């Protein structure tokens, strides 16, 4: 915001000095494009380009909103898809061309605001200008006004001065060489103040947005209910994150959080009506606190906020392998529809390790892949849940045995099996799909058992920080204030010419010919003719 300081401290513009140095020539070279850039017409064109440029961002899938949709789109449009990708069509709002437009617009804005601000300050400080030579050229004017005052110019001018002061004009009375007097009056600087405030607020918002994108971050984490399932605000513990360019990953708000409970309520048609996550959290070495996070009510910390994004079920199963070794796993399943039909996998990489030692070939690792239905439909062949709450939960699993492919070093999803391992036959389905109700146990083909203990809820939480937010809000409020003042304000200049003798003439000029401009002028002229003094009129009005 160096420009702001310059603006307030800089001296009024000096008149251009004669002589052309090399620096001057350089300035001269840039002057024309600069003039062009800072003209209102260019600003208008840029404004429209900005609107136009935003359109593809709303019609094509965007990476920042939904990566999967972008990938689907790319897969469906083999030729056009990659071509558009080169043009940043899936990331419009971060594209160089979108940035170019708004940066040009804001350079234009600065270029147009600085002279305007200077002119405005000068105008506020300056006395109302001398009357134009020919009042009859003004948009409205009046001749032959008989102002009471005994024909004495000074007395007439004094009356007019009082009259205009009373109407909140700034007034300057000037004596002319011919013995006449002119009265100049001006009001409505507030309109221009509002205008400048509005446009500076736009700048402030841009700066704040930049602040946020450099020093802000967001990170997502799926949290299963339970003290053993919490997380801390460090990058390693997140499923997904986006950091601003200037964020130091070591200095994120040191918060740790775990979920103690979750309350979900649904309408009869399955739409959610309440989502509430009950959490415990600590900041740094501070004491543990508890809080409730809801949609519309994030947990607000000093330097971060935590949002509740979504929820689902994590089945808990106990698997006992053929050697009698049991393990319990909690595996969050991801919902695939509004009724929380959820899919996922439960992996036991350490299964079937003989008591004698390790199983180096991973030939007997075990995993279960399947579907969880919180409400089994009356016709089970539908394969989809009938209601999002657990009314009649069922877990349907298929066992896989072989090499899970976890050591390959390739990051793999924890929500699905490695398809490559299945395709190459290294991981094979065993037996048929089994359906389990909570508490039920099934015996597997190799003699092991699988028990479905129940489910725990999970929630996706998002940690966010945006240091520009407050400034954006302040900017937005100032913008609105400036806008209202600008649109309501009226700028008006009125002049009276009092000749040495004879009737007075008057004229007025409005910066924009607002409705009522003429009426206001006429009312002033009428008051000028009024025999009563300004003070008398005001007491009359006041009573």
């Amino acid at each position, binding site marked *: 915001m160096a420009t702001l300081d310059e603006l307030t401290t800089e001296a009024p513009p000096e008149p251009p000095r004669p002589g052309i140095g090399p620096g001057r020539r350089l300035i001269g070279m840039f002057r024309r494009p600069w003039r062009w850039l800072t003209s209102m017409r260019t600003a208008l064109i840029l404004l429209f380009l900005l*609107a136009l440029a935003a359109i593809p961002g709303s019609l094509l899938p965007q990476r920042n909103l939904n990566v999967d949709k972008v990938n689907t789109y790319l897969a469906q449009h083999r030729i056009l898809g990659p071509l558009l990708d080169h043009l940043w069509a899936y990331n419009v709002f971060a594209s160089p061309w979108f940035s170019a437009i708004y940066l040009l617009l804001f350079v234009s804005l600065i270029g147009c605001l600085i002279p305007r601000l200077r002119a405005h300050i000068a105008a506020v400080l300056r006395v109302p200008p001398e009357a134009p030579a020919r009042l009859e050229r003004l948009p409205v004017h009046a001749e032959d006004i008989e102002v009471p005052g005994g024909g004495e110019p000074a007395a007439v001018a004094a009356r007019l001065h009082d009259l205009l002061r009373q109407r909140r004009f700034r007034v300057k009375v000037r004596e002319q060489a011919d013995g006449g007097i002119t009265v100049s009056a001006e009001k409505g600087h507030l309109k221009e103040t509002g205008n400048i405030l509005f446009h500076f607020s736009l700048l402030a918002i841009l700066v704040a947005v930049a602040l946020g994108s450099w020093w802000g971050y967001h990170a997502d984490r799926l949290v299963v209910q339970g003290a053993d399932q919490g997380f801390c605000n460090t990058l390693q513990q997140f499923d997904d994150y986006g950091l601003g360019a200037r964020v130091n990953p070591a200095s994120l708000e040191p918060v740790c959080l775990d979920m103690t409970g979750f309350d979900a309520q649904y309408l009869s048609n399955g739409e959610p009506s309440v989502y509430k996550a009950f959490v415990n959290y600590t900041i740094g070495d501070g004491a543990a606190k508890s809080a409730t996070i809801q949609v519309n009510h994030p947990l607000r910390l000093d330097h971060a906020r935590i949002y509740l994004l979504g929820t689902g079920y994590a089945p808990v199963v106990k698997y006992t392998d053929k050697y009698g070794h049991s393990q319990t796993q909690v595996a969050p399943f991801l919902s695939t529809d509004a009724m929380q039909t959820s899919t996922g996998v439960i992996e036991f990489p350490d299964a079937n390790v003989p008591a004698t030692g390790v199983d180096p070939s991973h030939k007997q690792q075990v995993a279960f892949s399947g579907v969880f239905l919180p409400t089994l439909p009356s016709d089970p062949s539908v394969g989809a849940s009938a209601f999002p709450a657990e009314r009649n939960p069922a877990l349907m699993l298929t066992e896989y045995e072989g090499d899970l492919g976890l050591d390959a070093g390739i990051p793999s999803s924890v929500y699905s099996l490695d398809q490559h391992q299945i395709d190459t036959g290294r991981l094979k389905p065993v037996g048929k799909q089994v359906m389990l109700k909570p508490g039920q146990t099934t015996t597997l083909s190799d003699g092991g058992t699988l028990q479905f203990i129940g489910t725990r809820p999970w929630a996706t939480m998002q940690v966010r920080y945006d240091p520009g937010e407050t400034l954006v809000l302040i900017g937005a409020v100032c913008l609105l204030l400036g806008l209202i003042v600008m649109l309501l304000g009226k700028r008006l200049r009125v002049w009276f010419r009092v000749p040495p003798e004879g009737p007075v003439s008057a004229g007025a000029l409005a910066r924009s010919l607002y409705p009522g401009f003429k009426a206001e002028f006429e009312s002033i002229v009428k008051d000028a003719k009024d025999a009563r003094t300004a003070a008398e009129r005001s007491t009359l009005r006041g009573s």
Partner: protein
Amino acid sequence: MAALSDHLLVVAILAYAIAMLTYAAEYAFGNRGVVARIAVRERAPERELVGAGVPVGGATLDASGTDPSDSVDEPGAGGDLRAADPPAAIWAGRVATALTLVGWLAHLSCVVTRGFAAHRVPWGNMYEFVLAVTLVGASAWLVLLVRRPRIRPLGLFVTLALVILLGIDGVKLYTPVAPLVPALNSYWLKIHVTAAVTASGILMVGFVAAALTIVRTGYERGKTRFPYSLGDRLPAAEGLERLTFRLHAFAFPIWTFAIICGAIWAEAAWGRYWGWDPKETWAFIAWVIYAGYLHARATPSVKRTIATWIAVLGWGAMMVNLFVVNLVVSGLHSYAGVG
């Protein structure tokens, strides 16, 4: 209560539709000279009035609707006819206004009963949103009419817009009463959506004024083809243009406020104040276009007609935001509730 609200919608649409036809009748039979001049000039057939299908002849003049100072009469259409609107036309105008009022009352009751049926502010889905926007539009129209009776000829087009929007709303967008999804359950719904509804309703009337300004300007420049021929009985372009500006200058800060409140709410609900969700993007596009309109109008080098076209474009963006974004594009704002 919900059923009552649905019935009231039908009443409102019917009343507006009849009001529209009555306005059309006033428009068509606005003076005694019509029939005579049709016979004389033989240029009536190409002049058809949209919406009503009532043939209008050279209905050039009228006293009740037009600013006397701004008639742009064709030569030969004597000024003596001006003052002579037949009582039938005057009555048609009054009846049309009364019917608009009846429609408005039904419309208002429709929205209020819907609110009682749902136990919340009645603008929680797209059906209710359009219902509320048109109610604001109708209210703005009635207020304008009280303050400037001379703009009555615009009534035909305002009621036309109301009937079209409410018709689409009732037929295509109807949604049974239901509670709000959790994300909408916030007092920001009341603030943000109320502001958006208010701004949109006024901008709707602003759009009608802008479109008619263009029509009338064309007419005053001597264009006689179809849409311009409607300019015949409209108030002078200059006054219409000023009305257009004032409506937009009034609505623009409200629209700005709506967007700001939306951003504050988005911060609480979705974790960011702005995310270029399609709805946000189109709100921004409309805002930028309307800002462009205000700029263009304040710039002397831009022709007023071009500025007015920009305002029309702005309403286009508002309509895209309402219909295309809600029904075609999916985003976080997918609360339309339209299956």
